[in-house]
């Protein structure tokens, strides 16, 4: 945040999706309700930096990504790109601005038009932004494909001829085609197998180093964030709960939700069989949320204050460059994430012996 001109800066960005009012609502003058998808998020992305945005479904992470790429218009707040206000850009100006920010979508099948060939798909931003001819587009796409690890001779293939990983490479190539300054990666690997996921993540990190692109990596996958991101922001029900350097946040989470998230990640360790997860309750509704900390209903460390007063995002007690939104940051900050896992009590039943078979 010390950088004088951050690449992307959002300030109290809000996105509400109003619910349709039924006839009876209109008659009884019930005020319209809305889904608070993103509720006052302020963050910055510096040039060439990878910011990981972790959250579960309903956290508003995808909505935030769409706001950052201006696929949505925020209900409130401002979005600045290289210092210029882009919150309410429309029409031609918006189309031209889009060459700065490109998006890689989650669904490797759906985000590629099944009726277009590779060069048409990857070249679409080029043609939209520069009005290049067919031949020029083909040449540019051909030059671009090796950088995402695809062979040059697949220009005329259709997307369904590629595996999931291949399709996601196409998406990345499409995003790269107009040399953007920021790429919003919306769950880029969550539809892929582990082995393919590693290939794509390696490629993304290489590309970032080579081209000095900034990433906004939106995912629920802690492992992907750990590998790709420089800084990480944790989102819960539309609000930032914690933000800081990736290593600090993942190794010493301060906010109880970050702890709960990290403890929940299944890891291939046989000892986990005996562990019981001690966070309960469902993710509450985003429709007109109640005041107070949004994690309070599930939080193992909840006190009365959490239920009435919104916690503000403030510097964490231990490290000043980390932000956390928790009333009890001082008390619970040092509790490790593993504390939310407990070993199951031994059951009285006779354990089947290995010789049983």
């Amino acid at each position, binding site marked *: 945040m010390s950088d004088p001109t951050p690449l992307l800066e959002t300030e109290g960005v809000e996105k509400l999706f109003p619910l349709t009012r039924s006839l009876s609502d209109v008659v009884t003058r019930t005020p319209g309700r809305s889904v608070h998808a993103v509720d006052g998020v302020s963050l910055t992305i510096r040039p060439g930096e990878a910011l990981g945005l972790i959250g579960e479904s309903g956290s508003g992470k995808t909505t935030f990504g769409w706001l950052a790429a201006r696929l949505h218009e925020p209900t409130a707040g401002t979005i600045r790109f290289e210092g210029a206000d882009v919150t309410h850009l429309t029409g031609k100006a918006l189309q031209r601005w889009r060459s700065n920010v490109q998006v890689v979508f989650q669904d490797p099948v759906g985000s590629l038009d099944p009726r277009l060939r590779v060069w048409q798909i990857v070249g679409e931003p080029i043609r939209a932004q520069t009005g290049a001819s067919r031949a020029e587009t083909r040449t540019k796409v051909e030059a671009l494909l090796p950088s995402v690890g695809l062979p040059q001779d697949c220009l005329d293939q259709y997307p369904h001829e590629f595996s999931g990983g291949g399709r996601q490479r196409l998406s990345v190539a499409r995003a790269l085609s107009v040399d953007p300054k920021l790429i919003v990666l919306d769950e880029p690997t969550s539809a892929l197998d582990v082995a393919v996921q590693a290939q794509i993540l390696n490629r993304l990190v290489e590309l970032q180093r080579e081209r000095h692109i900034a990433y906004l990596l939106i995912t629920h996958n*802690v492992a992907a964030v*750990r590998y790709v991101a420089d800084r990480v922001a944790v989102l819960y029900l539309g609000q930032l709960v914690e933000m800081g350097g990736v290593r600090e946040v993942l190794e010493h989470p301060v906010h109880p939700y970050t702890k709960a998230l990290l403890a929940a990640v299944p890891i291939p360790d046989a000892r986990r069989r005996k562990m019981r*997860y001690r966070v309960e309750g469902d993710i509450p509704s985003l429709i007109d949320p109640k005041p107070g900390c949004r994690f309070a209903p599930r939080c193992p460390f909840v006190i009365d204050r959490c239920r009435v007063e919104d916690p503000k995002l403030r510097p964490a007690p231990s490290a000043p460059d980390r932000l956390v939104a928790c009333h009890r940051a001082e008390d619970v900050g040092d509790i490790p994430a593993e504390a939310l896992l407990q070993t199951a009590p031994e059951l009285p039943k006779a354990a089947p012996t290995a010789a*049983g078979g």
Partner: protein
Amino acid sequence: MTEPVLDVQHLSITYTVGAGSFPAVTDVSLQLYPGRVVGIVGETGCGKSTLAKAIPRLLPEPPATIGGGKVVFRGTDLVKVSKRQLPMVRGTGIGMIFQEPLNSLNPAYRVFDQVAESIRIRHYRDMGYVKTFQGGEVPFDYSKRPTETVASSLTKPFVPDGAVGEIVRDRLRTRSDFRKEVLEYLRLVRINDPETILDLFPHELSGGMRQRIMIAMALSEKPSVLIADEPTSALDVTIQAQVLTLMKELIDEVQTAILFISHDLGVIAETADEVGVMYAGQIVEYGPVAEVFHNPRHPYTKALLRAAPTRYKSEGPLSAMAGSVPNLSRLPSGCRFNPRCPLVQPLCREKMPPLDPVVPGEVVVGGRAHASACFFQSEVPNLP
């Protein structure tokens, strides 16, 4: 404990499409015992879901054909059962939990109706109104269960009284008579306030709640075998952890034999006692979870474990596995992993390695010994 509830022996499944065919599952053997969980882990297209659907014969045949092997369930070979008798087989105690709970629940019915329907059908079957398939000489005996818990009493079959009047009254029962039982099952899957949940429609529930309902429905049929095909893959991480914790508790309580399928090594580690690693339709490594995950003896298992990103980018690139999952219609000769294997030798291209025990002499089939289908399995620990 000595008798497996479900015994899959050398099962092979082929898909025939047009003129071509490809082997989706090749020579898979595994045994399920009450109260134990066998995990199957593998990447997309490795045949794990095909296997899951083939066991209760839910695969559409054609295009699938069961090429060989047996699926012995309570003494009956399900492979040999005629198509006409299949519905009865499915009713007799193989429960399924699928990945997408929203698609698996009928959106037009309330939670109560869905759970009550499965209880009612099971009840009718127990009373003998609905034909069931009682094949073989070894009927599964629920009373052999080690301890009586709340849950195991729930999964006991009805005992008909025999009085004629009772039967007649029973015949007239409708779904609404099962309210108490439905509530018990909802409590079993730790749903708070089940009275309210009963009257909701599936779309009004969260994903975790829907998956709990699915589990309740599967359990309410009192299955002696439960097949869970990626049951938590559609859920959020914290909700997945909650559902997995519920499943772990139920595994201990219900004492059903479970086949748990997932692409996530971590999820398998959470739930399974033994794990089979599938690659290109074969089980390439099998054994207790602690053994397989902490001392893998197949290069594929090792690579899979290492591919999970656990490092920061300052620590160098992730170890990505070379190559890709082979096209099932054009499999390499010999070991199917040989084009991607760091240990490959000429022998691997000539012969298919058998599933050999890691400790020589241990019984693989029917036992729980750690086994690996690799000629050079002793060299795997030396791999980076």
